[in-house]
């Protein structure tokens, strides 16, 4: 059994985040459709609002923390910016140039300052890190490693992760998880696992999710990868598609995290087979929905439909107590 996550609240945004709640994220140029961007934004605000800002932490608080977000979904820095600022820590947020608008929105939180420098601009990065006691770096492992190597500032790195879900029969819950962020987020389901998966129900739910939260921009490379996946699924399993979505059933031996926009991959197998197939990636599984067999030490467990709604009061993110790490490392 797993401890279910608290349901994401539909209302109840923290007063500190209310200025953000009045913004329309459709203007953030996230690549998502306006409907999807709004759904992601409101969910992220509600989840961040759940953070317990009075939770005792060991050590002493850092005076200032930099959040460097390179290749992430546009809401990724939100919960850290909110929690740190809410505890009186000065926050310097650096997001990629593609996320200037959403970073500026997060900069509306009191105590958060937004800065920009070109990726790879080592001098600017060094100057920024010299101002802080610690940094949270969200992005590729190579980016995290490079920043760690270049700086004496303590770094909490949150690298690439992916989500998996057990087939529970609730096709709409799975489709919702796949729809938010168009399936590109680290909490998105890269795989639906189990037995007797109802592809018709999933296809219907994917189509309905597309109507509610239309898919956004798809790059040429992603479109090419989708054609590759479709061919692979046709050759070795089943491929279903509609306007703006795809559904692949593949042999479990083909399991790999893909993160393609609005494409859901189904792999059927017994518990032992599923656990074995996921084994090579067990430390990269960051979100597990439903009773997926196997041990995933860094994963948050939740119910299907809540993969994209991590409650802000959870202690661990990717297996790391980020706040505790910041407090102890900067002591």
């Amino acid at each position: 059994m797993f401890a279910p996550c608290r349901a994401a609240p539909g209302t109840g945004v923290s007063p500190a985040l209310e200025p953000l709640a009045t913004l329309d994220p459709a203007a953030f140029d996230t690549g998502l459709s306006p409907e999807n961007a709004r759904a992601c934004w409101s969910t992220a605000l509600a989840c961040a609002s759940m953070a317990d800002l009075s939770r005792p932490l060991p050590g002493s608080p850092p005076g200032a923390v930099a959040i460097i977000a390179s290749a992430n979904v546009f809401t990724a820095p939100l919960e850290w910016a909110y929690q740190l600022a809410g505890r009186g820590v000065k926050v310097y947020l650096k997001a990629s140039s593609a996320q200037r608008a959403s970073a500026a929105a997060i900069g509306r939180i009191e105590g958060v300052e937004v800065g920009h420098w070109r990726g790879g601009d080592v001098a600017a990065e060094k100057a920024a890190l010299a101002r802080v006691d610690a940094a949270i770096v969200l992005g590729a492992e190579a980016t995290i490693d490079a920043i760690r190597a270049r700086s004496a500032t303590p770094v909490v790195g949150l690298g690439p992760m992916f989500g998996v879900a057990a087939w529970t029969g609730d096709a709409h819950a799975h489709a919702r998880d796949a729809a938010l962020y168009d399936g590109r987020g680290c909490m998105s389901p890269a795989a639906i696992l189990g037995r007797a998966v109802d592809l018709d129900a999933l296809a219907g739910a994917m189509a309905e999710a597309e109507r509610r939260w239309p898919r956004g921009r798809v790059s040429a490379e992603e479109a090419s990868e989708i054609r590759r996946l479709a061919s692979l699924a046709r050759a070795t399993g089943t491929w279903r598609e509609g306007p703006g979505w795809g559904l692949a059933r593949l042999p479990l031996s083909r399991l790999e995290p893909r993160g393609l926009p609005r494409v859901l991959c189904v792999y059927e197998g017994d518990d032992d087979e599923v656990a074995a197939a996921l084994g090579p990636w067990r430390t990269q599984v960051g979100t597990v929905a439903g009773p997926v067999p196997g041990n995933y030490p860094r994963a948050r467990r939740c119910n299907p439909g809540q993969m994209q709604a991590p409650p802000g009061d959870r202690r661990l993110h990717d297996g790391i107590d980020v706040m505790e790490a910041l407090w102890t490392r900067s002591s």
Partner: protein
Amino acid sequence: MSARDALRARVLQAIETRVAPEALFLDAYRYQQAASPLLARLWTAEARGIEDIPAVPVALFKDLDLGPVPPLPGDVLFRTSGTTGSARGVHRSRDTLLYDLGAVAHYREMVRAGPARVVSICPVDADSSLGHMVALFGPVEAYFDGAVSAGAWAALQAPCLLATTAFALDALFATEGAATLDARSVVMVTGGFKGRHARLDAPALYEAIPARLGSPRVVGEYGMTELSSQSWTAPVAAGELPGAFVAPPWMRVYAADPHTGRAVEGEGVLRFVDLCNLDSVLAIETQDLGRVERRDEGDRVTLLGRLEGAELRGCSLRAERLRVQA
């Protein structure tokens, strides 16, 4: 005579006459549909024209064995270099007859050169199709062992076909040496930089040829492991930039919208329909962008870039970018 042998005879005739009717492509499609259970699952529709033949994404060669059924011990395997991804793609055929005759015929047509001494500085493995191809043009002296090797400049003191990738030519020019080749020699440049660091961009690389190699003719070659036919540019004088690639008549080329996958006029992701792929997959979708002009004597292709390097807009990365835990 088997269906394969009958079709092969017609492809050989197409190579010889440089005329490949559309009906031959469609017959080859129907043959592969019937011969391969895998392709039968991918190709469920009738094709009324060449562009109706569903193009298989080139990356699928990393996922599946798309060679003839059943695999036999004598089959020929060409493998991709693996420089653009972690897995190596495999292209399997019964033999190389069509590959060899097609490659030599189009090389001679385009380059107007007979057998030559080949100096190769291509970084090729033993199972590379590029290595196989250059060996068809003459005896090969190879000067690459992880880097351009020391004897390369000495080997270039006599007339030859210098077979090189753009990257290797750049590496050669980074070493001390010079040659004074004349127009009897040919510099064959294949492949781009594919994201690898290079000192020179393409125009500067070609402009440097007269100072370093003399006045050989220069040609560009476009090929890939998953295709059995190659496209060549017309030769140009040293110092000039080669122009558009010309495909042989037995390999049709068209562009497709990279987002929708539908055939388009002019620019798009390149698709090749290669009769010499009779044993594997007739129609391939590459990850190269280009502009195509339809010509009976051979479609003309101008390369515009690659699909790779698109922005990743999420924190979930694909398998090859994740660290796999043992």
